[in-house]
């Protein structure tokens, strides 16, 4: 490998990734027990997701959805090239990995969304929007909230398995770049194109506003 390291992931994207993973873990461990912490993790997750959506449209190039969400024909092309060991080197998510990104973001969003309305069997610990619906519906949503976590678990296992496959079978450096932001490619690769800092400020503002609003049950008064 003779090329200097290429910048792949910007700071906000990396921070988002590890913060989300940590908060999902916290939410999992506190479920049903330390409910204040559980709800807090949920609000933070909603804020992070809101930031990520903004960043996916306005952030660094490799974080943009338009960059990696490419559609079925791109996925097919990537897979057949990959099978022949000819997938071109690329900074950012490949078209197949894009599905994983969307699925993980979507399933975590669903989980947090359901949690807003859920209540426990004692009618004692409820999400901030559980007061807008009746007990029976909130209980039903609580059951879906438990079920949809199984989906997240399955997707996380798949995500980890895919990373391990890429790292050990295909000898692609994937873990370190998500920490340091840089990766060594064997040839020249179009690297990350950053965006001005004000866009990060806007994103952080959006995230904080969403997290705060969620914690208040989206009530304005």
């Amino acid at each position, binding site marked *: 490998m003779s090329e200097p390291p290429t910048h792949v992931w910007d700071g906000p994207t990396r921070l988002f990734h590890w913060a989300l993973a940590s908060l999902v873990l916290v939410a999992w461990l506190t479920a*049903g027990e330390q409910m204040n912490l559980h709800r807090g993790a949920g609000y933070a997750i909603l804020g992070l997701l809101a930031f990520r959506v903004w960043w996916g449209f306005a952030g660094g190039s490799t974080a943009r959805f338009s960059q990696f969400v490419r559609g079925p024909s791109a996925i097919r092309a990537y897979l057949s090239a990959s099978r022949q060991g000819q997938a071109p080197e690329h900074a950012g998510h490949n078209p197949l990995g894009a599905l994983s990104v969307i699925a993980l973001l979507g399933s975590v969003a669903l989980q947090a969304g359901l949690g807003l309305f859920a*209540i426990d*069997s*004692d*009618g*004692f610990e*409820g999400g901030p929007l*559980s*007061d807008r619906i*009746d*007990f*029976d519906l*909130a*209980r039903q949503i609580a059951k879906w909230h438990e079920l949809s976590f199984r989906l997240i678990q399955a997707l996380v296992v798949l995500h980890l398995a895919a990373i391990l496959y890429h790292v050990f079978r295909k000898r692609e450096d994937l873990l370190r770049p998500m920490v340091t932001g840089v990766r060594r490619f064997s040839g020249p690769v179009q690297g990350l194109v950053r965006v001005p800092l004000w866009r990060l400020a806007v994103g952080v503002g959006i995230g904080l506003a969403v997290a705060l609003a969620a914690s208040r049950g989206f009530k304005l008064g």
Partner: protein
Amino acid sequence: MTSSRRLLSAAVCAAALALAGGAALAAVNAKAVIETRESNFKSMGKAMKAMNEGLKAEAPDMAAIAANASTIRGFAPKISTWFPKGTGPEAGVKTEAKAEIWTDPAGFAAAASRLEPEITKLETLARAGDVAGARAQFRVVGGTCKGCHDKFRED
């Protein structure tokens, strides 16, 4: 067949039918018992939710709080009667009651009996219009629900 053999086989048939019928009846009864107690617990859960939300208001409607507390107080002393033998996980009917209810009857009776004095206290505080007191006591009531459920109800 001789008449004594006929009598014996008739008696065996009757006994078998009685046993099968008894088992079927017990299964039907378990289902009814389980459904009734689940409905009662849901009523208590609804009342808890209503009080939780009511107490969050700036100026809670204490009459409504008292009424919900009264609903729960009606059920509280009867809880331990809702779990006759044969209505646990072995009944073959879906239930969230854990086997511990019947293997640790003293523990279950103690946990179940903690609700009545606490919900009575809450109702009294609500009728007296003591908002701060009711808010604090509501959390105590929630704790007694959890205390029993942590040990005796499936997650």
